[in-house]
């Protein structure tokens, strides 16, 4: 499954991508984390605050680093 992390390369965006990778490793799910840094593409998802997380083409989180539990829920 593919998860997109939207954000212009700020510290919190990196922390978000790292967290998802870590949780994926813990739960042994195969996940590809794609970092979207291009502003046009980010804006195209309609988010106004970053970092934002896109799972299956849908924005599930925006504006902060998600919690560990949230990531577990997305990986299902």
């Amino acid at each position, binding site marked *: 499954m593919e998860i997109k992390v939207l*954000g*212009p390369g*700020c510290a*919190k965006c990196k922390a978000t991508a790292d967290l998802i990778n870590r949780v994926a490793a813990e739960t042994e799910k195969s996940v590809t984390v794609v970092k979207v840094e291009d*502003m*046009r593409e*980010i*804006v*195209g*998802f*309609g*988010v*106004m*605050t*970053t970092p934002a997380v896109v799972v299956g083409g849908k*924005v*599930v*989180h*925006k*504006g*902060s680093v*998600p*919690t560990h*539990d*949230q990531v577990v*829920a997305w990986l299902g």
Partner: protein
Amino acid sequence: MSVQTTSQPSPRPDWLWHAGLIAFVVVWWLVYRQLIPFSELVTSLFPVERHSHTGEAIAFFFYDVPKVMMLLTLIVFAMGVVRSYFSPERTRAMLAGKREGLGNVMAAGLGVMTPFCSCSAVPLFIGLVSAGVPLGVTFSFLIAAPMVNEVALALLFGLVGWKVAMTYFAFGISIAVVAGWVIGKLKLEGWLQDWVRDIHSGATAPDAVDDAPLTLVDRYHLGIEAVREIFGRVWMWIILGIGMGALIHGYVPEDLMVRIMGAEAWWSVPAAVLIGIPMYTNAAGVIPIVEALLGKGAALGTVLAFMMAVIALSLPEMIILKQVLTLRLIGVFIGVVGSGILAVGYLFNFLF
């Protein structure tokens, strides 16, 4: 702000959270009242004369650091809770289709309340403009958001006094309203970067994600999160700012300060603005310096102009905005806001 609330039920009952909060505020107040004896005690441990330059500087430092940290904790927590009732999406919905004038006033007010981080400035800007919020109204928001924030107000209130804090608040909002209104009147939509203009004319706002309702305890969590985050970001600036303030407090002679930053020196206001623009720190770093300058007899208008220029017009923010604004538009932005700050500075030196 999170879209989903934490799925797990909170292990502690709600009443414990409320009781804990009250207990914290009481302890906070008791400790806060002991700060002067604390700083005197720490200063007396140093092998220096209390009323020497070094002694004054040390006492200033050890009084201000805990004071600023404590004020920040309480105010940032409170604002974190209040801000959980606001979101960029809601702000956008409130501002879309608003006319200039009233729209500028609302945008400046919402700029104070809406959670804002400069790294989100671009998506926020585009989110507003693409939803049909007029450019000038968007600017009112963008000017107020960094300049009139809870950190600035709390520190001014605690370190300099409530009169200065209220005046700063009133003039900060006024500058945001007027500067945004002027930029709107200039009709500069053509000076946006091309790709932004395309989104603008398309005028279809992407759907916002729905926020799940939060409980009060969820909002406490957001407040605590805000405290953690703000401290992580600003503690270095606070120490540096207070260090600078302590040096000014201890060593800079008063007559020198009055000569270069007093109300009599007409050129001091533009000089303060020009020095302030390229300087990059935030409210937490600059207010201890403001406190020390005022204590040495610098004029209030000059110091406020300096502070506003440092916070509202910063080089890193310009570089971020360069992605959506042409250089010409950034120039107009700096010019309009800078003039407003200049006017406030002179007005103050004239009035007080």
